[in-house]
């Protein structure tokens, strides 16, 4: 219990610290990058929900980013709906499409599921590219209205930061609760061993559908938020490369670790912005990272037995050694005394028998 409270305190301190970020960071460009980090963190969390928690390799996440964004843009531009309705309907639409995708691949797994998600991604991108009257083809949709809540417009970077932060915290808490609930446990059971899970009463196929719907809901939220923030959406935001990049965010941070996903998003969104050369080499870097991490730390930085735990583990080992020595010394004296005691007793006992 004490540990748990401590963790919560750390989280609170972290949130309080992040609230003051816009006051510290005055540069608009940097603030923009930070906003993108917040939004991509939500996507990374949703990727983690599928790949990290449920163990289904999904290469089609960016399709949902595009779906959410396009739905939001079309609702705002063509139908002039209020923001909140367009925003929530975008995520619900994504959840619905995710439900459909889940229904299609509910019975398949491994490569088959991956192939289906790849196919879904390619289909979505082709529809975005070719359905010109609605999606405006390769040029994308421009002048998408910004987020407005109760007459308050989140049009500047400063204002949007709080919107994104609020969104991220809500999504984080909800996803955290989901992973701690019965459903989340079922996801982890499916990841670890689908056959054993099915024998312990978990309906693997249906939980896969649930998993896809929930994750798509969050991806859709983030996609709509990105569209509202950038005021622009193009079909190339939902390419297969983008999906791999999103996947790498979850992998780098640590599959199965929620703070890890945020860390992965932080690294992989900020790094390409630091230098132009890195931006050009980003996919090569991501590929290299994927290989190296799969070889040595398949669970990422903050995942189970990941880099973080190993660093802490080395420290712990060192301190454990010290403690162990101390404890051993203590034990030795105790043992000695015990031995003395027991030998005396034995002597006494034997002496008694002899008598």
């Amino acid at each position: 219990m004490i540990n748990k409270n401590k963790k919560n305190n750390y989280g609170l301190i972290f949130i309080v610290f992040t609230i003051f970020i816009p006051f510290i960071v005055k540069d608009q460009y940097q603030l923009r990058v930070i906003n993108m980090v917040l939004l991509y963190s939500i996507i990374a969390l949703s990727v983690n929900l599928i790949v990290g928690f449920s163990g289904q390799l999904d290469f089609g996440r960016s399709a949902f980013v595009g779906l959410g964004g396009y739905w939001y843009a079309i609702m705002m531009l063509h139908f002039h709906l209020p923001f909140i309705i367009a925003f929530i309907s975008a995520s619900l639409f994504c959840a619905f499409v995710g439900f459909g995708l889940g229904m299609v691949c509910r019975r398949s797994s491994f490569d088959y599921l991956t192939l289906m998600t790849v196919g879904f991604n390619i289909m979505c991108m082709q529809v975005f590219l070719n359905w010109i009257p609605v999606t405006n083809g390769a040029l994308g949709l421009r002048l998408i209205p910004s987020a407005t809540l109760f007459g308050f417009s989140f049009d500047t970077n400063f204002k949007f930061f709080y919107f994104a932060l609020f969104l991220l915290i809500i999504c984080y808490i909800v996803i955290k609760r989901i992973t701690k609930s019965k459903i989340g446990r079922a996801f982890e059971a499916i990841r670890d061993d689908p056959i054993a899970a099915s024998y312990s009463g978990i309906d693997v196929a249906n939980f896969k559908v649930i998993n896809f719907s929930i994750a798509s809901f969050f991806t859709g939220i983030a996609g709509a938020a990105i569209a509202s923030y950038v005021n622009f959406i193009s079909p190339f935001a939902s390419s297969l490369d983008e999906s791999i990049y999103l996947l790498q965010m979850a992998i780098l941070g640590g599959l199965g670790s929620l703070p890890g996903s945020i860390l992965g998003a932080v690294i992989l969104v900020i790094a390409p912005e630091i230098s132009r050369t890195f931006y050009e080499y980003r996919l090569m870097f991501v590929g290299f990272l994927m290989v190296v991490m799969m070889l040595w730390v398949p669970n990422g930085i903050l995942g189970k037995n990941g880099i973080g735990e190993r660093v802490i583990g080395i420290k712990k080992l060192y301190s454990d050694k010290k403690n162990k020595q101390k404890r051993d010394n203590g034990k030795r004296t105790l043992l000695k005394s015990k031995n003395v005691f027991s030998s005396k007793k034995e002597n006494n006992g034997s002496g008694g028998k002899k008598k």
Partner: protein
Amino acid sequence: MFLQYLINGLSIGSVYALIAIGFNMVYGILNLLNFAHGDTYTVGCFVIFALVAMKLNIFLAIMCGILVGYILNTLVERFAYRSVRFSGRITPTISAVGIAYVMRNVVLRIWGPETYPFDMGIRGAQVKFGNFVLGTLQIYIFIIAIVLMLLITFILKRSKIGQSVTAISQSIPISALMGVPVNRTISTVYGVGGALGVIGGFLFCIYYESIFLGIGFMLGTMKAWMSSIIGGIGSLKGAIIGALTLGLMESFTGGYISSQYRDSFVWGFIVIFILIRPKGLFPSAISEKV
């Protein structure tokens, strides 16, 4: 028109078949899909292209390309597969995707995203039968694919290494206990797969008379993957028939349904196919979880 679509479909299908053979052979042995297949042969084809541009003899250049494919794929096996062979199915897939991205971006850095004309002096003649056109090159490609398939089937059935490959595809620990050099055999299979991929990719480039980055992933790995799933994983006959089916599907949907949404429809068909018959048309003898 129907006959022309049929012929187009079969000819593009035979090109896919050549790529799918190498892919499916590797897919069958460990049941791990080789995401780097397309990018390996892209590197090989670009090497051939560069060597021919340097006025090297074309056969020597092709040999060099095949060698590069062999070495690259053994390296891929060594670094992306061997260490993670027993850690589930997600980990090797991710590492293979990673190595594919590294290779693709190296090619992108060296040759750029442009499309180059691929002129090797090999050009098929066009034969006209009344209304429809038949290229001789496509017939050659089809024959090469069939010959390679028969050759590989023969090697797998008759030779010692072929027998060890079959043994490994059934059970790695037991074949290791029987004295089969597991690592060396798997590495050889990957190498041969890469070499076959380079041959396929080379003919692919000749067929389209151009070379560009996209031949690797979208036109290579994906099509090979689709055709091996249609045909059945690990079955060479299945790979060829799956590739021909895929080619026919593409040609007919492009002709009769919609050329804009051709890929979407083809992917849709593949998804429906997986739902109906996940093991493919010619499933391998060992049952596999879907």
